[in-house]
């Protein structure tokens, strides 16, 4: 990924008059950028004896790490699960349009599809750095087809699969080569799932539990095999029950590997989850919350019929919601936590020194005023333009 061929001669940018998210707090500090990375100004001062080449006044606004969306099925009429001839331009369109929402990196998500679709689409969506052209692609999120029939939700029943005796080969045959894949959602109660989870984990692919009827025990075992994420908590899984909390119980389970943080995606649109339920999860395990859109191709379009993979979906108005927690927590749930989930927290989802300079300028209502990738302005609200 690009970001930081920092020649010492590169220009030093100083963003002043702002509050930056650092260490979980909003601090009144300047943000310094050079060569596409966040710069340590104290080091610049004492070692290089240099000042900034350019200053930008942020008008007292909030600077937060760029948002990372690990579950987005498409948008603006583009459906990632459609095997079109030019998948690349569809991804590029979405990548460009989500900049205005403050998303600087994302995982295009494919819902349950027949193998032909995976074989055609997956190779056409490589990992790609972000820039003025659009948000960066961190890798694909394959949600299904190895999921529970009962909890398939909007996924087409005809294309669900389970693992046969040669489980991992089965998966490879279905998806094709896994080079561009970053996350796989599966149901751990399926037979042979544990060897699959282990194989995927050794290849650096994040395994997520979702669309499943697993009980807490099965979920814990899956975590021991390497699973680290829960796909849209509460949705498409057994409801929390006080004698068997199911997958939801992972948030407070004491039977997980020491030091392991389990992350969970939440669709904070106020519809998929009641805000009160969201708050219960957040209070139980605030460090694991990852905000996702699970956006469908209809995102940004009007009402009507649209495709979602092999299905058609009616859209009747869109709602948006901010999680009922502190501003700092919400911002971290949209940036730091997804970065930690993917093991990228040294370079993404943070404004620490040395990280890629992907960040957003927000007003106090958390509306995006400007988006930066590698220290370059890639989107700006009309009102903010001078």
């Amino acid at each position, binding site marked *: 990924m690009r970001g930081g061929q920092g020649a010492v001669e590169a220009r030093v940018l100083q963003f002043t008059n702002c509050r930056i998210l650092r260490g979980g707090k909003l601090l009144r500090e*300047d943000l310094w950028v050079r060569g596409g990375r966040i710069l340590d*100004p*104290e*080091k*610049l*001062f*004492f070692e*290089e*004896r*240099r*000042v900034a080449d350019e200053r930008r006044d942020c008008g007292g606004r909030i600077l937060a790490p760029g948002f990372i969306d690990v579950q987005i099925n498409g948008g603006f009429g583009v459906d990632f699960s459609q095997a079109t001839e030019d998948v690349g331009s569809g991804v590029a369109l979405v990548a460009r349009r989500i900049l205005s929402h403050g998303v600087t990196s994302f995982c295009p998500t494919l819902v349950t599809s027949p193998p032909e679709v995976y074989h055609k689409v997956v190779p056409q969506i490589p990992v790609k750095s972000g820039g003025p052209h659009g948000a960066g692609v961190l890798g694909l999120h394959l949600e299904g087809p190895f999921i529970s029939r009962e909890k398939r939700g909007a996924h087409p029943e005809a294309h669900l699969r389970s693992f046969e005796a040669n489980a991992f080969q089965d998966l490879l045959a279905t998806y094709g080569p896994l080079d561009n894949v970053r996350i796989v959602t599966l149901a751990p109660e399926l037979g042979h799932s544990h060897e699959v989870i282990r194989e995927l984990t050794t290849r650096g692919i994040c395994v997520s539990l979702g669309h499943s009827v697993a009980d807490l025990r099965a979920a814990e075992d899956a975590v021991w095999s390497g699973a680290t994420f829960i796909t849209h908590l509460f949705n498409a899984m057994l409801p929390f029950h006080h004698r068997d909390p199911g997958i939801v119980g992972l948030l407070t389970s004491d039977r997980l590997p020491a030091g392991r943080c389990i992350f969970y995606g939440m669709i904070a649109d106020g519809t998929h989850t009641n805000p009160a339920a969201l708050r219960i999860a957040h209070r139980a395990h605030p460090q694991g919350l990852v905000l996702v859109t699970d956006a469908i191709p209809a995102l940004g379009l009007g009402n009507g019929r649209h495709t979602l993979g092999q299905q058609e979906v009616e859209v009747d108005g869109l709602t948006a919601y901010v999680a009922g927690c502190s501003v700092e927590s919400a911002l971290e749930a949209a940036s730091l936590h997804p970065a930690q989930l993917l093991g990228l927290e040294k370079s993404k989802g943070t404004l620490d020194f040395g990280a890629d300079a992907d960040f957003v300028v927000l007003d106090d209502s958390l509306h995006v005023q400007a988006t930066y990738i590698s220290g370059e302005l890639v989107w700006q609200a009309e009102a903010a333009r001078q």
Partner: protein
Amino acid sequence: MKLIILDHYSQASEWAAKYIRNRIIQFNPGPEKYFTLGLPTGSTPLGCYKKLIEYYKNGDLSFKYVKTFNMDEYVGLPRDHPESYHSFMWNNFFKHIDIHPENTYILDGNAVDLQAECDAFEEKIKAAGGIELFVGGIGPDGHIAFNEPGSSLVSRTRVKTLAMDTILANARFFDGELTKVPTMALTVGVGTVMDAREVMILITGAHKAFALYKAIEEGVNHMWTVSAFQQHPRTVFVCDEDATLELKVKTVKYFKGLMLVHNKLVDPLYSIKEKETEKSQSSKKPYSD
């Protein structure tokens, strides 16, 4: 000496900051003529630094043509350690003002040859034309910089081992753990500060009262190194009430009586901003106070 007594810490900090501001503006520094300022660290000068930052942000003061020389730095502490004096100066002063990094001088406690580093520092002061105003504080043991009791009153910049009193006083910055406090430091000498054309010592708080008494009401003594400034032609001591608790009532009354005169030293002058625009004399206005 001038002994300036204000009621509270905040007023003492403000008086000191205004004095520094006025001195810089009156000096009228420029690219050929830098104002050389000696600076301290610690909790005492924090209020003064905040005020100076405020004057810079108001546009009333610029550090563009100011060179700063810090008094001291720990030996062996990494430069980016949160308790190093480099970090202190960056976080509490430099990052908020318009000083150019090349005009700041702080001793390097990680230099390969410590005494050579100290000698070089003396040379840098000389090359800058000497210090115009050296601002300092006082330790509970009456020391100036790290010139601990027993330091020669004509000493120069050198390596010093810290006294137990000083280590104890500094432990609060190192999680209260005595073993974490550095035991050595590089410091300007008493003689180095005496060479400055003017010296200003900030002394606030009851815990400094005895040291102040020893420094100005008793004799010149190398056990209380601040006492050396009794022999400097231009010294200002800026205190709050609490710091005067060990002084004679007579001393305090005498100097409080002079405050009317002394306060003229901090009256608003014309700001640097106004001077630069070179408007007609009558349209100049004093800066916000």
